């Protein structure tokens, strides 16, 4: 135990002595998450619209008046289709609407066509904007339509992206920092040749490895508390519908299994350049398979099986459930268990691979 604590505190002191590193880690957990959360929206917001109106009618004006903030910017009028196209090609506007000269007449004969030009390079907004436009036109044309869709967006009523994105950014920073920090503590010693001396000490190598990793986990946990407390709760007003303690325990388990990945990287890498590249290469599939980009149920069945190996999958699901859905801890036991098992397996590998001389 004494050996464990000595190594543990040695690493902590080493970390806090390196001001640059402390600054970078602090920056990542605060400013970076803030920028990412504030930075952008994925839903159609502020979409730039341009139009050409040959009909000069009441109906076209009425339709345009439905395009308002926050979803749309004030539509810009163009005098000819060429000008409209030029603006689209320069990507100054995203949606171009053309009203034919017969538009109003056709409208009363129920055969009006609305020509919409969409910059589909922004496919994400493209899909949703189009659906939105269709809805506006439909509701506009069919005021007597007897079916009303009552849509409730649960857990995040306004589909607030900053809330979600700040959380997502926090998750990726946490993953990145944990993997890099916990592999670097080993590789640094490997590079300077002191790792062999560590192993020659009359202390169980497992204890040294654990102490080194847990010192980095401790650093990450401090970062987590700062980030969640100040940025997520303070700035972005994230709800906490579940139990905060459960979140902390889940984070602990997650950083345990991620530092296991760091251990794996450390056992393969010989110098820091390799750490940098290996950790990027290993982390990308983990992020990719976690369901943060493509929902797991939309993936190819083989990938769905593989995604069971991504610790981020369990953590994201757990975090979303705890923050937004307010799921009870007992319904999340799978996530806790899976993270624990993944961590233990990775550590077993690490013990064997770098816990031995030569």
């Amino acid at each position, binding site marked *: 135990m004494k050996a464990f604590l000595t190594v543990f505190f040695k690493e902590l002191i080493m970390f806090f002595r390196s001001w640059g*590193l402390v600054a970078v880690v602090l920056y990542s957990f605060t400013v970076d998450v803030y920028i990412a959360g504030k*930075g952008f929206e994925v839903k159609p917001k502020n979409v*730039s619209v341009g139009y050409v109106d040959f009909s000069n009618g009441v109906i076209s004006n009425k339709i345009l008046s439905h395009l308002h903030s926050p979803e749309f910017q004030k539509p810009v009028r163009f005098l000819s289709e060429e000008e409209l196209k030029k603006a689209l090609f320069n990507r100054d506007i995203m949606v171009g609407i053309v009203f034919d000269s017969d538009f109003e007449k056709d*409208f009363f004969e129920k055969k009006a066509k609305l020509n919409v030009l969409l*910059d589909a390079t922004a496919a994400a907004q493209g899909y949703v904007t189009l659906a939105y436009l269709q809805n506006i036109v439909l509701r506009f*044309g069919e005021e007597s339509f007897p079916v009303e869709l009552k849509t409730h967006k649960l857990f995040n009523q306004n589909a607030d992206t900053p809330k979600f994105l700040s959380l997502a950014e926090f998750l990726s920073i946490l993953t990145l920092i944990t993997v890099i920090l916990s592999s670097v503590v080993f590789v640094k010693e490997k590079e300077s040749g002191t790792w062999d001396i560590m192993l020659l000490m009359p202390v169980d190598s497992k204890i040294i490895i654990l102490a080194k990793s847990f010192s980095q986990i401790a650093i990450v946990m401090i970062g987590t508390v700062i980030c969640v407390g100040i940025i997520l709760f303070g700035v972005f007003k994230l709800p906490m519908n579940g139990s905060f303690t459960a979140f902390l325990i889940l984070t602990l388990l997650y950083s345990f299994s991620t530092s296991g990945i760091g251990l794996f990287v450390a056992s393969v890498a010989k110098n820091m350049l390799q750490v940098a590249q290996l950790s990027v290469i290993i982390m990308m599939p983990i992020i990719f398979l976690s369901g943060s980009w493509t929902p797991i149920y939309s993936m190819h069945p083989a990938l769905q099986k593989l995604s069971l190996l991504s610790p981020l999958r369990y953590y994201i699901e757990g975090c979303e459930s705890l923050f937004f859905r307010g799921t009870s801890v007992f319904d999340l036991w799978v996530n806790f268990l899976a993270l624990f098992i993944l961590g233990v397996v990775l550590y077993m590998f690490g013990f064997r691979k770098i816990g031995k001389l030569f």
Partner: protein
Amino acid sequence: MIKINVVKAYLKKEFSELVRSRLIIMVYLMPSMILILFGYGIKMEVYNVRTAIINYDKSQLSYRIISAFEHSRYFTAEVVNLPEEKALEMMKRAEIDLLIIIPESFEKHLLKGIKTEIGIFVDASFPFRGLTIQSYAEGVLLKEAQEVLQSRPSIVINHRNLFNQAMRDENAIVPGLLGIVFLVAPAILSALLIVREKERGTIFNFYSSPVRKTDFVIGKLSLPFLLHSVNIFIIFLWAAYLFKVPFRGNFFIYWITSEIYVLISVSIGLLVSIVARTQIVAIVLTVIITIIPGFLYSGIVMPISSMEGEAAVEAHIFPVMYYNHIIYDTFLIGQGFSSDKNLFYFFILIFYWLFITVIGVLLLRKELR
């Protein structure tokens, strides 16, 4: 003037070190991996949405709606005989993403023209996915209702998707990924090449030798630049042949812009290595200052034209936006330099590169701090 011999010596030394440590494989593996994984990984469409339907009506029309959901590849629908609270409980446990409630005597009301309501509950803890699911579901329901009522809408939207007719996710995302790939990979490599010497102490060779700053910088940075110049072609092949993104523009413009962009990235690496003293700081710093703007301010996830306030300002500060504008043009639009905006952005990139490099060379000290 530049001393060619010094530059050559540095190039040779760095190159042989990179080959000996087999890191050269990584130089070529990492950019391709980023492109392939994210190119396949980022999908805006959602399939097999786990849907639960509660049917209180049990009429022909409600069964028709259910079968529309069951036959759509976007949904994996299931009729559940549960009270609403139980179904919402399922959503709370993240077992379903969409819940649709068809009220009693829905068909009767509809045919009589009395207003009826269908309840749609979407799990929006993943906001964009939630919105997409919502628009799919509303689309299916409205379409069915319209067909039953045989009411024709008075306005039909006749939409054309410019630049990406089929609305392929790959076409929209892969060109944007180039902006990330060529920003992250060269920057990491060039940052580490200098910081490594600092950490090992071999930087003193440079401090004490008569090598000049400019020669040192050129010598150190040409290797990442040359290696990643090859990547410009490799990445192009992936994009054009693996992801089948159409290429409508001028290849020369693609090539020259990418070279300048790699130069920008390499000089960002130079800036990082001036600030950082240890390799770990350099790695984390580079990843953070390149990946985040690479994603956020590149126009992939949010079009530049919809940004406002801070975001718009920040987007204009980073080089990604300018590069991506030209790259999207070369791939999907094909206006080339006949568009003033492309030409303007191209000069901004050149200016950007000169600016960063000059700052880097000025800040680099040739003495012990």
